[in-house]
């Protein structure tokens, strides 16, 4: 293990969020089993109070997930000098097999926690807790994933061993490490990927606007927003990053959040994550549109979510387009590396 302050902070955050989720889960199970809004039983009253605690806890977990996602990448990036062959976060994440799974789970958990909060918000609008069971079913799904993330992250950080000078073996110690998964994604052809990205993005935006205006195709929009989220990530790696770095060979999805590129990555990723959470929120809430106590507000809220998502995706596209147009890199023909 590397006793780096950021590593300690990462582990702390991860243990705290899994502790909070476990605590929330404990009451979540009770709610799933014993919830009965008609009953005036003491347990029911206790549970009704506990829902406030749980939603507060999970809002914190959500905030913590967002911050720790960036802290995680930061840490990986700053640890890079300690490993042979690692120049930024990509190399550090490849140091042991748990790096990338931990990162993927972090992103997934961020999205899941966001969806839970959307569900929670909608639930609080109705006077009779109409979505409570669904909410806690989702929590029952999120909690194990957050625990799993905690385990992977611990394994990742605790298993790290820096390549430093040991007593007398000098440079022999630094054997070349084989680079792994990270670079594989990057080798997708840049230009076709870009056209694909723009194509799917326009479909998504049109679908979103149609949904906003006519209220049709909510599920389609949710599915498309998940799809375009994944495509956007791939496009950042395979082509957008090239334009930001103005280097036809540099595919790193992490360096764009660094100071050299004026922290543009934060903006891109925050917009993207916000867009996918609100887009998926449309799909999560759509089945509840006919619930009696939510009829009045829910479809308005869903449309607002769709609009938010569409605006964010449009902003993402605009930002990316601006970066591509203003970049001095011109890709006229493709070289396969």
């Amino acid at each position, binding site marked *: 293990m*590397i*006793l*780096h*302050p*950021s*590593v*300690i*902070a*990462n582990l*702390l*955050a991860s243990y*705290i969020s899994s502790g*909070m989720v476990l605590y929330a889960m404990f009451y979540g199970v009770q709610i799933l089993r014993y919830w009965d809004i008609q009953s005036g039983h003491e347990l029911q009253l206790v549970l009704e*109070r506990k829902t*406030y*605690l749980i939603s*507060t*806890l999970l809002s*914190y977990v959500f905030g*913590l997930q967002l*911050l*720790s996602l*960036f*802290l995680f990448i*930061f*840490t990986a*990036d*700053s640890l890079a*000098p*300690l490993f*042979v062959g690692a120049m930024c976060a990509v190399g550090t994440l490849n140091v042991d097999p748990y790096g990338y799974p931990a990162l993927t789970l972090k992103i997934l958990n961020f999205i899941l926690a966001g969806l839970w909060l959307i569900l929670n918000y909608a639930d*609080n609008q109705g006077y009779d807790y109409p979505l409570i069971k669904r909410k806690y079913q989702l929590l029952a799904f999120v909690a194990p994933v957050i625990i799993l993330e905690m385990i992977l992250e611990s394994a990742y950080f605790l298993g790290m061993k*820096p*390549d*430093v*000078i040991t*007593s*007398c*073996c*000098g*440079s*022999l*110690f*630094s054997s*070349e490490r084989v680079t792994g998964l990270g670079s594989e994604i990057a080798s997708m052809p840049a230009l076709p990927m870009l056209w694909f990205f723009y194509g799917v993005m326009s479909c998504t935006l049109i679908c979103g606007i149609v949904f906003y205006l006519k209220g049709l195709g909510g599920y389609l929009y949710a599915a498309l927003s998940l799809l375009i989220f994944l495509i956007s990530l791939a496009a950042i790696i395979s082509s957008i990053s090239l334009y930001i770095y103005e280097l036809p060979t540099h595919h790193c999805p992490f360096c764009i959040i660094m*100071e*050299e590129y004026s922290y543009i990555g934060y903006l891109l990723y925050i917009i993207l994550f916000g867009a996918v959470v609100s887009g998926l929120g449309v799909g999560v809430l759509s089945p509840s549109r006919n619930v009696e106590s939510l009829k009045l507000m829910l479809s308005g809220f869903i449309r607002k979510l769709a609009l938010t998502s569409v605006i964010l995706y449009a902003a993402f596209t605009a930002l990316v387009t601006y970066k591509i147009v203003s970049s001095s890199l011109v890709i006229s023909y493709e070289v396969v590396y």
Partner: protein
Amino acid sequence: MRQWIEKQRYIIDFTISSLLRRKVKNFGLLALYTLIVFMLASTMFFTYSIKKEASLILKDTPEIIVQKIVAGRHDLFPVSYIDTLKKIRGVAAVESRLWGYYYDGLVSANYTLLVPPANGDTSGKSRPSAKTTVVVSESGGQQADKSKPLFELGGAVLEPGTLITGNGIARLRDIGKDDYMPFRAFDGSVLNLRIAGALSSQSELVSSDLLLITAEDFRKLFGIDNRYVTDVTVAVNNPSEVEMVASKIRKALPEARPISRVEILRTYDSIFNWRGGMMIVIFSAAVLAFVIFAWDKASGLSAGERREIGILKAVGWETSDVIQMKFWEGAVVSLTAFFTGVILAYVHVFFTGSIVFEPALKGWSSLYPNFELTPFVNLEQLTTLFFLTVVPYTVATIVPIWRAATIDPDSAMRFTGE
């Protein structure tokens, strides 16, 4: 949206005025909180900037240093090996070095004696190597630093019988230009050397205990034969070949130990990471104590506070509003403490030379350099700090807040014994 912002504003207004109503209690918490942030932030700022300093200095060191090892110990390097090194493909230049330590019993301090490289053009710095300079892209300020040599002779000329001292030695011995400095040579005879000048004070981190001496005097002082040098440095043109060249050196000279620059950098990084981490682990006890304190503060509501919440709920505040109020209370306290602590730590580390933690973090020596750290703070440090202080505090107060917020108004107001 506007309505929401207005609502939050009113809640914040209310929270702050309610905080100010209980000045003593809240300022006690705030002071303790600030102190915790201050301690952690000082540690982090110090280790990060010293790491930065070390990496800036080491950036100009030679790519590979080759030492000879006998029975696992560092031994003198035979000059005849240099030709073998020069024959290795990829090696741009090989430079021999003479350096060592001298223990001065008078002031019980160790000096570092170094024979400056004979001519500048092989000393790594002015060597034209397009590749290495392209890779290093730092901000403008550091670029200026880079072009400066590590030590400046300040016009003094080094000739046999003279030496040039670092500032630390000059301070310790209270000597200056044209004074004589006696050395006891290896055979017991006394060698009297005249001081020709002092090194510039800008580079004190590296040159505080440094004595520059001519090769002749050096050999006379330590009795080192002309056939030996202390070690050699190997310059490599292509940075990506360094590992390969190092392994070739090991093959050609089995008793040699090549050490590459990146390995030294990595080791320094690890050491300072470890020191900073160690301090944080030690401070974690303090953080834990603080968290327990915060928990206690948040859960031990005074009768007045209970009644306040009871009345708020009775006049129509919902549980979620009370939680929101408490959230803002936490945010106000946390952010005030966090930023005050960070600013104080910044002043402490970069303006007062971190008087409190210096001995633990820097190491100890009787000839310690006086130097001012270049301020270096980035977002990563601040995020880490936030996670180590604000997050534990916030988490510790969630459950007490919820308990307070779910008090029934009637039971809260029935408590009137204030």
